[in-house]
C-alpha cells in the first residue's frame, strides 16, 4: 500500500508517495537521503534518530511516516542557517566538547532543541530528564549537559 502525504520538512513543503509501513526514519534516511538522523537501535531505546514532529521530540524509528501527513518536521539538517551559521545549540555542542564520535549528537541536539523551544529556561534536572532517552557512550554526558546549559544561557543567540 502506498499513500501520498504532505508535510513541512525544515520549513519546506514536501509531498511524497510513501509505503504505509515505512518509519519516519526510513523515509528521511533511506528515501530522502537525510543522513543526519541516525539509527542507533531501531527500537526506540537510544534516541539517535530523534527528530521534532510538531514541536515534540520523537524517536523517528518508532514513528510511522504516514503519521506525519500534515505535520511539521524538524531534523538536524534544518538547524543551521542557510548561510552556514550554526544554531546556538550546535555551536555550544561544538564549543563545549559535547561531541566526540558524534553518532548521538544529532539526536541529542534535537532533544535539546525540543526542550529549549518549549522551556527556554530549563534547569539542570529538566535538561537531564529531557535527554534521558538519548544514549551517549563517549562523553559521560558531562560536556553534553554543559553544552545545553550554555545554549540556554545564550538565550537562543550565538555569541
Amino acid at each position, binding site marked *: 500500500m502506498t499513500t501520498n502525504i504532505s508535510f513541512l520538512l525544515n520549513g519546506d513543503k514536501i509531498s511524497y508517495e510513501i509505503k504505509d509501513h515505512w518509519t519516519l526514519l526510513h523515509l528521511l534516511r533511506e528515501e530522502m537521503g537525510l543522513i543526519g538522523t541516525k539509527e542507533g537501535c531501531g527500537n526506540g531505546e537510544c534516541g539517535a534518530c530523534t527528530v521534532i514532529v510538531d514541536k515534540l521530540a520523537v524517536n523517528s524509528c518508532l514513528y510511522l511516516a504516514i503519521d506525519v501527513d500534515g505535520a511539521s518536521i524538524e531534523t538536524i539538517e534544518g538547524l*543551521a542557517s542557510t548561510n552556514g551559521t550554526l544554531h546556538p545549540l550546535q555551536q555550544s555542542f561544538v564549543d563545549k566538547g559535547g*561531541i566526540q*564520535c558524534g553518532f548521538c549528537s544529532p539526536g541529542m541536539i534535537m532533544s535539546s532543541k525540543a526542550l529549549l523551544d518549549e522551556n527556554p529556561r530549563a534547569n539542570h534536572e529538566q535538561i537531564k530528564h529531557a535527554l534521558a532517552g538519548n544514549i551517549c557512550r*563517549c*562523553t559521560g554526558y558531562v560536556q553534553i549537559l554543559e553544552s545545553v546549559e550554555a545554549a540556554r544561557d545564550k538565550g537562543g543567540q550565538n555569541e
Partner: protein
Amino acid sequence: MNNLNPDTNREFSVVGKRIPKLDAAQKAMGRAEYIQDIKLPGMLFGKILYSKHAHADIVKIDTSKARALAGVHAVLTGEDVPKKMKMGFYKDNPPIKKGKVCSFRDEVAAVAAISPEIAKKALDLIEIEYEELPGIFDPEKAMEKDSPLVHEYHKSNVLNLPWKLHYGDVEKAEKESDFVVEEKFTTQWVTHCCLGTSGAIALFDSNDNLTIHTNTQIPSLAQKDFLESLKAMGLVNKRVRVIKPIIGGGFGSKLDTYAYEHISILLAYACRKPVKIMFDRVEEFKATSTRQPTVIYIKQGCDKNGKLTFRDMRMVLDNGAYTSWGATTPSVMMMPITSLYRVDNVRFNAKCVYTNNTYSQAMRGYGNPQATFAIESTLDMLAEKAGIGRVDIRRINRNQPGDITPQGFKITSCGISECIDEVEKEFAIDGPKEKGIGTGIASLIHVGGGARIYKSDGCGAILKMDDYGKVDIFTGGTDMGQGLDNITAQIVAEELGLYVEDINVVHTDTDVCPWDVGAHASRSTFVAGNAALGAAKKVKETILEYGSKFLDADPEDLVLRDRAIFVSGDPEKSMPIDKLLRKAHFSPQGKMLMADFFYDPDNENMGKEFKGNMSVTYAFGAHGVKVKVDEETGKVQVLDYVAAHDVGRAINPLLLEGQVYGGVVMGLGYALTEEVVTRNGQNMNANFRDYKLFTAKDAIKIKAPVVETYDEYGPFGAKGIGEPGCVPTAPAIANAIYDAVGVRIFDLPITPEKVLAALKEKKSATTEI
C-alpha cells in the same frame, strides 16, 4: 622528582588550548558520513545467519530455497570458506563455521541480495539440522579433565598461552609479612555499546584488488588480515585498500577484524559487486566481542609499617569459543599487578579457557580495570587489617620518578602523589563518617607512551605544504571520536607557527596514510603525536633554511609565528609563510615542502619472563568517590566524583576532560550497572532496555583535575589519557560502599541485589554473635 619542564617559560599559541574538535561542526550538522551512510553504486546487502545452539554438530545445511529467491546473488556456508581463512591471532576462528558450532554467535551462513529485506528473507529460507552437544559455560569447570571439549582438535580447553611471571620470592615474602589479605573476585562481560553499530562494505576492482570501507581502529593491521584472507582465497599479490569512514565509537571494539568484514569480502568476491554488511543493535550486542571476564584469586601482604611485601595473583579467563585480543589482556593486567605501587615480590598466572560462550576483545583499559579492581579492593582491606589509613597506605607505597618496577618498567614522570593530593582536596577519605555515606579511593598505572605488543609500536606521518601556507598531514593514527585529529593539528600548528584551521588531518585511507599499529593502549597522542611532530620539525628545518636565505638572517634567529617567519629582535624583517612557500616553489630548482617521519618509540618488547620497558612512559591517576548507600534497597548513589590524572601535558584540556569524563562513566557502568547476561551461552539482554548504560538522568558531576608532570619523551610533554579514566572506577566505588555500610562486594557489577544480600549477611552475622 619529576622532570623539569624545559618549556615552562615558553608561550604556546596552540598547544594547551581548548580548541573544539575539528570535525565537531560537521557532526553537529549531521553531515558526517559514517559507515551507515555510505552507499555505493550497484551495492548489494549482506546478512549473516547465526547458530541456534551454543554447541552442536551441523548435520545438514540446505540453502537451495534461499538461492532460488529472486534478488539473491550469493549464499555462502562454511563449505565456501577457504580452509586457511581464519581470524584472530590464535587462528581458531573461520568467518563461517563448518561441521560444528561452538557458540550462539557462530556464523553458519551468509547471503548477499539486492535489498536488506530480501537478504533477511533468504536467511529465513536456509534450513539447518543441528545435533546438540553438551556445552560448557564455566571456565573453571572447563578446565576439569572430563569437561567436554570446545574444539576437539585442541585436545584441551586451556589455551597455550604463556601468561605467567614470578619476580622476587612471593612465598618467602608472604611468610615475612605482618598482614596478609586473600580474596576471590569476579568480573563480568560488558560490551562497548558504540552508538554507531558495526559495518563494512567490500568491493573488488577488475584486477581483483580489494577496497574495504570499514569501522576499524587498526587500518594497517586490518589490511594485513584482509591480505591474508585474499591469499587464502587464492588471490596473491593483490592490493588491499582500507578506507575508514567516521567511526561511531571504538573503545577497543574495532581492534581486531571480525567475521562480518571477512564475509563481506567473500560475498563481494562471489558477486563481483560491492557488498555491505551492517549490524543492527541486537547483532551488535550478540556478535561483537566483550570485555574479558575474569575469576581472580589475589593475595597481598604488607609489613607493620604498611609497606607492601608481595602480591600474588591467579586468574582464570573465560576465553569463549574463539580467540581474539581478550586472551592477551593478561599482558596488560601484568602492569598493575607488578607495577601499581612499589612491590618487590610479585607472581601472576592466568589461564585462558575455551567455553561455549561469546569471545572477548580489547576494551578500554585492556585488562587493567579487572586487575585493578582486585588490587585496589584488597589494598583497602590490607590497610584496615594493618590499622593504617587508606590514603597513607597508598602514599607509603606510591610509585616515584626514577623507579624501575619488578617487570622492568622505567618510571619517568610520575604524578601519582599529586593525584592523591587532588583527591584528598575534595574529600577527607579517612575523615569523619556520616551514616550511609562513604568515600573511596583507588589509583592506577597505565601505559602512557605507547605499548610494544607488536613487532613495531610505530606510526608514520607524511606532511606536505601547499602554496598557500596550508598543511595536509597524512597520519597512520586513527581518530574514532577521541580527538587525534585535533592533537595532530595542534602539534603541527604549534611547531610551524600556523593556526589549527591551516592543518588538514587525513587518517582514513591506507592508500595514502602510512603504517600505524592501531588506536589502542592510549598511544595515539604520544606515538602519532610524536610522528606528526617529527614530520613538522623536518619541514620547519627547510622553512628556516629558506627563511635564512630570503630574509638574510641566521636560522637560529628565526621564529615561526602567526603564519609568518620573523627575525627575532628585528620586527621589520619578516615574511608570510605562504609567500615563502611560493618563493621556494617557483624559484629555479624549485621545491615543494614535504616531509615524512616514522616514529617508533624506544620501548621494549616484553622478553622472557615478561620483563621489559613496555612503554616509554606511564600514566598515573587517582580517583575518589563519595557514595550514598540506601540500606533498605541496596541502591548505590554516586554523590561526587574526582578523577585526577597525570597526563604529562594537556595538549587540549577540553578533549582531555572529555576522555576522562567518558572513561569515568564507562567505569561507573562497569562498577554498578552493566552486564551482558547469558544463560547457557545465550545473550539474554541484547538491547538498551536490559543492558543498563548510564543515561543523562544518571549523569553525575565529575571533577577532572589535570596533573601536568611534563614527560620528556612525549610530544610537548604529553602522555596518553584515552583509557585511564575507566581503570580505577570500580574499586573506588567498592571501597566507598564498604566505607559507607561495611560490606564489600567482590563481584561486578555491584547491583542493589548484591549490596542488599551482603547487608543481610552482615546483619545475620552480627545477630548471631
